[in-house]
């Protein structure tokens, strides 16, 4: 139903391509294309400290997006929203800006489900500060084990960094409970919402997290833009990380003073058109019936799981709660499967999904991931299953001796 709002889908269909990789990046609604085209064809300007009305208009629209993001995720204040290049940059900003707060022997609590973006910055921070990464165990279904987790918090725990929705398993994590534990133990909490925000309503205050991160391009928005939410009392205390124009108050040859958050974290010319484009995407999403979307995605997910379970040799990894499923096939290499699916126009992810430690934990070299979005349809899954059957027919054949 919503899929007519996404012009690329028709173009892909015309080429025989079925896009089932929305967890990597989502196709864009027409509203986004229009917003970009309008901005770029009506006159661009740089933002902040506008001396003329065009710059004032652009800045106002830019800052309006900050308000809309704040509303979208339930932030208490607009200045809790920082625009970054991507989710990845947001995690790096945090890992550098929090560095002074981490001492030797401190513990950073991570799950083995984490995407490299929410793992490597902490791994590097731990190395720089002689801190320790502590790993939250996961259950067979791919959920963080809360009983085990609660025992891992201790006075040395300084930070919790967990994903809301695994980009490999599709499992929804007990983030609210974990953040509550973190708070009880005086630890900071960082939630990776890159996947989570796409498939459910987010309320950062209800989650109780200190920081929340996502990328616009997965949320039907533009690439080149990420969002960092930070609780005001914490964000406003973090030192700036990148330096340049617009984030300063006074600069002399010897020293400088900086703006308050969020501007102090937005050095230089920001991705203006991406911010305006995100605004259009959020407006589009806001106008949807989100419970209808959720129901649609849930039905698709069930269809996907059932279909996979019916196929011999196919084993799902974990038990997905939302939007995506990874699987392996006995005696079939995921790279071979990827190649045969691609030849049949099926665009799915194959490999380690930027989550090497998780793959090691699961004991698999790689997997095939099918991911869904609000514009996915049952027909997409039918095409996928047909292609899968064709591929497996070849790959599961006994090798001629």
């Amino acid at each position, binding site marked *: 139903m919503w899929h007519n709002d996404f012009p690329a889908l028709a173009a892909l269909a015309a080429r025989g391509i079925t896009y089932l990789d929305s967890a990597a990046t989502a196709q864009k609604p027409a509203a986004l294309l229009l917003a970009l085209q309008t901005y770029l064809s009506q006159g661009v300007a740089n*933002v902040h*400290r*506008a*001396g003329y009305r065009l710059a*004032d208009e652009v*800045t*106002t629209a830019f*800052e309006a997006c900050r308000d809309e993001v704040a509303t979208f995720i339930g932030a208490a204040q607009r200045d809790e929203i920082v625009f970054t290049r991507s989710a990845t940059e947001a995690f790096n900003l945090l890992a550098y800006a929090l560095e002074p707060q981490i001492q030797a022997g401190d513990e950073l609590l991570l799950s083995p489900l984490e995407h490299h973006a929410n793992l490597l910055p902490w791994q590097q921070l731990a190395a720089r500060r002689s801190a320790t990464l502590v790993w939250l165990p996961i259950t067979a279904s791919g959920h963080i084990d809360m009983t085990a987790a609660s025992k891992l918090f201790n006075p040395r725990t300084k930070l919790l960094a967990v994903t809301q929705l695994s980009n490999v398993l599709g499992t929804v994590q007990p983030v609210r409970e974990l953040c509550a534990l973190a708070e009880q133990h005086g630890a900071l909490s960082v939630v990776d919402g890159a996947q989570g925000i796409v498939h459910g309503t987010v309320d950062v205050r209800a989650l109780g997290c200190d920081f929340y991160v996502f990328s616009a391009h997965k949320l039907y928005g533009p690439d080149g833009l990420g969002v960092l939410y930070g609780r005001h009392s914490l964000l406003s205390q973090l030192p700036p990380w990148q330096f340049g124009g617009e984030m300063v108050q006074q600069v002399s040859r010897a020293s400088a003073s900086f703006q308050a958050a969020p501007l102090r974290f937005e050095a230089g010319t920001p991705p203006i058109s991406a911010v305006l484009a995100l605004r259009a995407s959020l407006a589009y999403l806001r106008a949807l019936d989100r419970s209808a979307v959720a129901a649609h995605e849930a039905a698709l997910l069930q269809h996907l799981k059932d279909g996979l379970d019916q196929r011999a040799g196919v084993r799902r990894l974990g038990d997905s709660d939302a939007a995506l499923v990874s699987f392996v096939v006995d005696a079939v290499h995921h790279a071979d499967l990827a190649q045969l699916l691609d030849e049949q126009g099926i665009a799915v992810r194959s490999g380690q999904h930027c989550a090497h430690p998780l793959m090691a934990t699961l004991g698999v070299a790689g997997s095939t991931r099918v991911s869904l979005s609000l514009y996915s349809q049952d027909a997409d899954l039918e095409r996928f299953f047909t292609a899968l059957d064709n591929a497996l027919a070849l790959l599961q054949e006994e090798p001629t001796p």
Partner: protein
Amino acid sequence: MSLPAAAQQVLNLLQQSPSFEGRNRALLQLGNQLPSFASERRNEQDLVHGCDSQVWLRCAQQGTALHFSASSDARLIRGLLACLLLRANGLTAAELAHVDWPDWLTQLGLKQQLSPSRANGLNAVVQRVLALSRAT
């Protein structure tokens, strides 16, 4: 809430001179009337941040009525400051809280100037006026 007399005057003045020249000449005149800060009173704590020119603002209380004085090194900005002050001066903190500033600047034909992203800092000045009034 009726307009203070001084505010009514500035309104009349600006509404009578809607042209580019007229409006700006009026603003410059208004700015000239602003009592200028002696330079020793231009201290850091009265400086309003976020303005492209230097703007100083202070607040005094006479009974419950508040009186603001302001200055700037830029003449037109002084005129804009005058427009704000003529509207604000003599009001109580409670009355000030109810002034519809965007509406006031719209009536003066100066609405654009109040945008938060404007380098003139007028919005920052209004915020400071309100903060000072709350602090009394």
